[in-house]
C-alpha cells in the first residue's frame, strides 16, 4: 500500500517569484501572498441574524461586522462579505469549519472557503496608485479607513478587499482575497499594474 503525500499547493506557487520586479530601485509596491489560512463563510439563517451576532461575539469576543468592515479579534479577522454574512479568517486551524460548526449551529450556515481564495497583501508608497488601476473603490484615507472592507470586483472577478492596520513604515496595507482559479491571472494583472513603480514580491507561509 503506497503512502501518499498531501502537499498543499498555492495557486500562485508557480506564478509568484519572490524578489524584485519591474522598475529597479526602491519598490513602490510590495505584494505578499499569505499562505495557509482558514477562511469560513458564515451566513445567517433566516431570521437568525441576531443569534449569529451573539454567537460571533461569544466565539471571537468582538461583534461580527454588519457593515462593510473588517474586525480584528484576538485570533481571527471577521470580514463583512454581504448582508447577513461574513468571513472568518484565521490561522492554525483554531477556527476551521469543524471548530466553528458548533458555535454557529443554530444561527448560521457555514461554507469552507479556505481553498477557494488566495490572500494577497498590497502595501508601499504606491499601493493606492497601483490599486487605482484595478479597483473602482475610493481608497483615499478618509474614504477607506483602517478596517474598511469591500465586496467588489477586479478585472470582472469578485474580490474581498479590506484595509488592515498600517505597516511598521506607516504605509497603508490593503488585503485582497481573490478567487483561487483566477489567482494566477489576476496576479499577472497586478504585476503589470505595479511594474512601473517597482515591486517587491514575497510570500509568507504563516
Amino acid at each position: 500500500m503506497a503512502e501518499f503525500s498531501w502537499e498543499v499547493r498555492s495557486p500562485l506557487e508557480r506564478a509568484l517569484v519572490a524578489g524584485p520586479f519591474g522598475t529597479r530601485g526602491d519598490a513602490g509596491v510590495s505584494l505578499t501572498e499569505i499562505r495557509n489560512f482558514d477562511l469560513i463563510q458564515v451566513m445567517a439563517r433566516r431570521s437568525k441574524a441576531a443569534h449569529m451576532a451573539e454567537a460571533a461575539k461569544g466565539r471571537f469576543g468582538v461583534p461580527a461586522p454588519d457593515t462593510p468592515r473588517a474586525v480584528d479579534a484576538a485570533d481571527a479577522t471577521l470580514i463583512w462579505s454581504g448582508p447577513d454574512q461574513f468571513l472568518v479568517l484565521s490561522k492554525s486551524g483554531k477556527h476551521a469549519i469543524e471548530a466553528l460548526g458548533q458555535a454557529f449551529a443554530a444561527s448560521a450556515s457555514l461554507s469552507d472557503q479556505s481553498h477557494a481564495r488566495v490572500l494577497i497583501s498590497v502595501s508601499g508608497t504606491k499601493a493606492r496608485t497601483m490599486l487605482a488601476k484595478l479597483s473602482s473603490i475610493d481608497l483615499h484615507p478618509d474614504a477607506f479607513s483602517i478596517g474598511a472592507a469591500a465586496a467588489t470586483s477586479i478585472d470582472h472577478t469578485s474580490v474581498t478587499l479590506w484595509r488592515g492596520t498600517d505597516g511598521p513604515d506607516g504605509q497603508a496595507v490593503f488585503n485582497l482575497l481573490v478567487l483561487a482559479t483566477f489567482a494566477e491571472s489576476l496576479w499577472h494583472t497586478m504585476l503589470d499594474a505595479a511594474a512601473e513603480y517597482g515591486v517587491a514580491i514575497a510570500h509568507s507561509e504563516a
Partner: protein
Amino acid sequence: MRIVCPFCGERELGEFTYLGDAKPARPAADAGEDAVFDYVYLRDNVAGAMSEHWYHSGGCRAWLKVTRNTLTHEISAVEPAAGAGAAKVGA
C-alpha cells in the same frame, strides 16, 4: 452610472447586472397561463421612472430594487429585494 447599494455603498455600473422590470410578482401556482404569460413577457418599458431589478453581482450579491429614470438614467431610490439581508427580518 453608479448605484448606491444599500449594503455596500455607491458602486460603479460594472459591478451590477440588470434584469429588468421589478413590478410584476410571480403568479401563484394556480394563477393560470394568462397570468404567467403576462409575468414572463409583458414588462414595463416606460420612458421615465421605472422600478427595476439589479443584481450586485460584482459585490455583495444582493438583489436590489432600483428606481431609475430611463430618459436620464437618474436613480432616485434603491432598496434591497425582500430576501436580501432578510436574516434580520422576523427575528
